[in-house]
């Protein structure tokens, strides 16, 4: 009767430990960052202006205490989620994680937007949890236990269709948290509204717990049943990548841009995970383990650089009081350190060598290629096209971050907000510094990281990796992944330390040539202005202008809307122009708005049952009782 009591409460296998590691490498710098974040700032820009308290960062000490309490609870709940060995406890921890993160999203309650974002978040996350509960109940019905071990055993003999249903329920449940398109809607609302260190943890780590869920429950416990699972995940992943990055490109709110970019990166991670699911079903366990390594590598990378970028965005917000990139600009001179860290993060997320994002995207592409080589016919083409979509995503991501960095940090300041910015305190810079170092380390030490991740993947996929060759060639530190003979027997090589070295040597050589042969010292002069009187920030390209070609090329999806209006003084004189441009959020417009309308409509219909008459209610109770008696009697 006491079957719900856990037999083995925690399990600390490499998979769990890996996620604990990811949680802490992001939470630690974020916590240090918080120290500086709550110090009130003195931006002269606020002097004569009624700014909201959150913009001025005036937090009461009680509120700061509350923040630390919530932060600790948040991190702890995530740790429990990834280590617990019992479904019931998992659900409780999952729910605590969701609720605490809700309170953190609405932490700046002075923003009306925070409340709205929080509401969207909590509704979406609970829809996800509902699906998880359904899946877990089905599992319990077969296993008669909530323990992972019992579930794993019973999953071996579970009928196929049931497994399919459980898989779909889990995919929707975890997909909501992971931000798989079209379940991503909450992400661009919730992440930007939270304080930046929380956005950093949410985007960097919390949404990754959903990937943990998919790996733990679908791959580890349930076992991949048929190949359409992997195909479905891959298709969703490709859509998620592209939709995420295209929206990120269009965005002008820097934190929302990063949130959309998280959607994109979750897609890239899922490409690895989905490919692992597909390959394991095609009886290629080693290649599948390799695909999972690629996915996990991108997972830890994304945690690091997205954490970094959110912290940088928070510093910009704190220093300027705005998140609108069209009001920023030229910050590289006011905030040189933050700018440098943001540049590192942008380079990593754009997959530029020799940083970490490059390694994981390279690995993912390689796995797709190797998977295609090992399969036949249509599957080859499918995997090739998936790979090319990943390439498109990485190209668009590079464009997106050229825009983000270029518009925010380069050129001339576009407003007083940016003009009066000051560098942030040391504790905040330290958080960013720490993560920047990790970005570089995870890029250079690729061979080592792959070797460690192989152990995680081995547990998750239940493969013996000893026949795979992972080695580091000295002294070039070339990473090698070799597959056993029955699966291609091929090895792939990459040496990020060597690339870094050659890049530096060549750059230095260029510099030496430049110093030896270039004539004279550079002269400083104003930017060429075609003889126009003086260039100012109004002549600069804005973020919206930057993304215009993309808006036109993807207009079938974005459905841009544009309005120009002339404000006339008189018939003859135009005083000013008003220009407005929007893109349509297709998922909101075509899925969520009709869905919400439907819910409201049915609620209205149901209200007729509740007219307020006590007699009617008594009649309800009586008839229910009667029905129950009949039911009990008959069945």
């Amino acid at each position, binding site marked *: 009767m006491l079957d719900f009591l856990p037999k083995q409460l925690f399990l600390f296998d490499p998979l769990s430990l890996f996620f604990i590691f990811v949680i802490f490498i992001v939470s630690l710098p974020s916590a240090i960052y918080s120290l500086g974040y709550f110090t009130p700032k003195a931006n002269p820009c606020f002097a004569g202006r009624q700014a909201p308290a959150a913009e001025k960062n005036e937090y009461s000490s009680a509120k700061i205490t509350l923040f630390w309490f919530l932060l600790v609870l948040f991190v702890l709940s995530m740790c429990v989620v990834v280590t617990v060995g019992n479904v019931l406890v998992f659900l409780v921890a999952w729910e605590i994680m969701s609720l605490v993160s809700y309170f953190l999203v609405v932490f700046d309650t002075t923003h009306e937007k925070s409340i709205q974002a929080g509401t969207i978040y909590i509704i979406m996350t609970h829809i996800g949890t509902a699906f998880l509960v359904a899946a877990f109940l089905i599992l319990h019905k077969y296993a008669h236990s909530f323990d992972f071990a019992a579930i794993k055993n019973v999953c071996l003999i579970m009928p196929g269709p049931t497994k399919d249903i459980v898989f779909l329920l889990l995919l929707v449940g975890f997909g909501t948290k992971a931000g798989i398109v079209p379940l991503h809607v909450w992400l661009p609302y919730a992440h930007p509204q939270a304080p930046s260190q929380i956005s950093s943890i949410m985007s960097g780590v919390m949404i990754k717990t959903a990937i943990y869920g998919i790996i733990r429950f679908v791959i580890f416990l349930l076992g991949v049943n048929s190949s359409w699972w992997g195909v479905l995940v891959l298709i969703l992943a490709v859509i998620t990548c592209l939709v995420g990055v295209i929206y990120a490109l269009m965005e002008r709110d820097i934190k929302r841009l990063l949130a959309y970019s998280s959607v994109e990166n979750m897609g890239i991670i899922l490409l690895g995970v989905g490919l692992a699911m597909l390959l394991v079903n095609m009886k290629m366990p080693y290649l599948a383990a390799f695909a999972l390594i690629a996915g996990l590598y991108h997972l830890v990378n994304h945690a690091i650089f997205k954490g970094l970028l959110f912290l940088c965005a928070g510093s910009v917000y704190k220093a300027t009081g705005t998140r609108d990139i069209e009001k920023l*600009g030229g910050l*590289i*001179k006011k905030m040189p350190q933050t700018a440098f860290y943001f540049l590192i993060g942008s*380079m990593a997320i754009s997959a*530029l*060598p020799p940083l970490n994002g490059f390694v994981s995207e*390279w690995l993912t*592409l390689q796995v797709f*290629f190797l998977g295609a080589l090992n399969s036949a016919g249509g599957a080859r*083409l499918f995997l*090739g*096209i998936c790979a*090319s979509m990943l*390439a*498109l995503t*990485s*190209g668009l991501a*590079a*464009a997106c971050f*050229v*825009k983000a*960095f*270029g518009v925010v940090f*380069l*050129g*001339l300041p576009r407003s007083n907000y940016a003009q009066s910015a000051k560098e942030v305190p040391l504790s905040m810079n330290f958080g960013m510094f720490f993560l920047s170092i990790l970005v570089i380390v995870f890029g250079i030490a690729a061979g080592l990281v792959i070797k460690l991740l192989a152990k995680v993947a081995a547990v998750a996929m239940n493969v013996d990796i000893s026949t795979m060759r992972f080695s580091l*060639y000295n002294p*070039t530190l070339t990473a090698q992944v070799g597959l056993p003979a029955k699966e291609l027997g*091929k090895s*792939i*090589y*990459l*040496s990020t330390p060597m*690339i870094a070295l*050659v*890049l530096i*040597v*060549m*750059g230095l*050589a*260029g510099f030496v040539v*430049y110093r030896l*042969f*270039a*004539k004279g010292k*550079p*002269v400083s*002069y*104003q*930017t*060429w202005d075609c003889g126009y009187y003086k*260039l100012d*920030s109004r*002549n600069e*390209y804005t973020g919206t202008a*930057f993304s*215009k*070609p993309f808006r*036109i*090329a993807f207009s079938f999806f974005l459905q841009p809307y544009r309005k120009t209006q002339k404000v006339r003084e008189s018939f003859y004189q135009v005083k000013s122009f008003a220009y407005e441009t929007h893109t349509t959020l297709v998922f909101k417009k075509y899925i969520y708005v009709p869905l919400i309308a439907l819910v409201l409509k049915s609620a209205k219909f149901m209200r007729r049952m509740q007219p307020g008459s006590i007699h009617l209610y008594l009649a309800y109770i009586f008839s229910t009782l009667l029905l129950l008696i009949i039911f009990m009697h008959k069945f």
Partner: protein
Amino acid sequence: MNKITLFFLQLIFFIVVAPFLSGLITKIKNSLRMRKGQSIFQPYYNLIKLFSKIQVVSETASWIFRVTPFILISSTLTVALLVPVFIFSNPLYRMGDFIAIIFIFALGRFFLALAALDTGSSFGGMGSSREMFIASLVEPALCLVVFSVFLQFGSTNLSVFSGMHAVSVSSLVGASALFLVVIAETSRVPVDNQETHLELTMVHEAMALEYSGASLALIELAAQVKQMIWFFLIAQIIFPITTLSLVNLKGLFSWGLWYLARILIIVITMAIVEVSVAKMRLFRVADFLGFAFVLGIIASICAILGA
């Protein structure tokens, strides 16, 4: 020969010959247009001239603007080391492969696009935005070309190309897709125009607009070397060539002749294409590269079918 010597030989080969190829294309174009045109060595004169000029740096520019020429040249030369020209097999070939090349080129482009935004001029923004637009659309087509080559030879490693012996349908189609990609990558006519500084048409030139003096020389050299690298990659796919064997002098001579002839064929094709088509609107470039993408898919299908 010593490996290190070969490295230097390859680097110097790329740096010295790359401007010549640019000059050659311009010369052929001018001949086709019945013009006398500039000397074939004009790109060298330009580089020397630029090095002897004092450069002007915008007041708005930050350190990004100053380091970009070096990052650009270093990324390009790093790729130049990965392309099999003199070094067919060496320990460095494990450094990176065809996929890594795409990403290393992206490093230089990323910084050039940032440097263009750095000066606060709208020309720079225009160039930067367009360049990133074109570059991101190039990626999927390029990836499929790599994929089709990979399916044939089972490796993305560039030294595998040198082991190729026969031309297949797949590599022909793949190479034509790569040719379209290279037109976009090297800012050639239907996509961009190297000859003009008209703001409506320029992409690459707009990004380099604020550069002058030695920095501009480095950027131009990087663009020329990049172009040469792409020509060699097309050549390796479409005209496979076996590894150089130093058996006899006659063999070496004919090998070298064929080696250069195939580059010349690509150069001439490029010049003819540039003269015979008109510059297309920026938003048509999406269709143009979409065509390259479709060719990439066809190349992959051919590779899958074993053709």
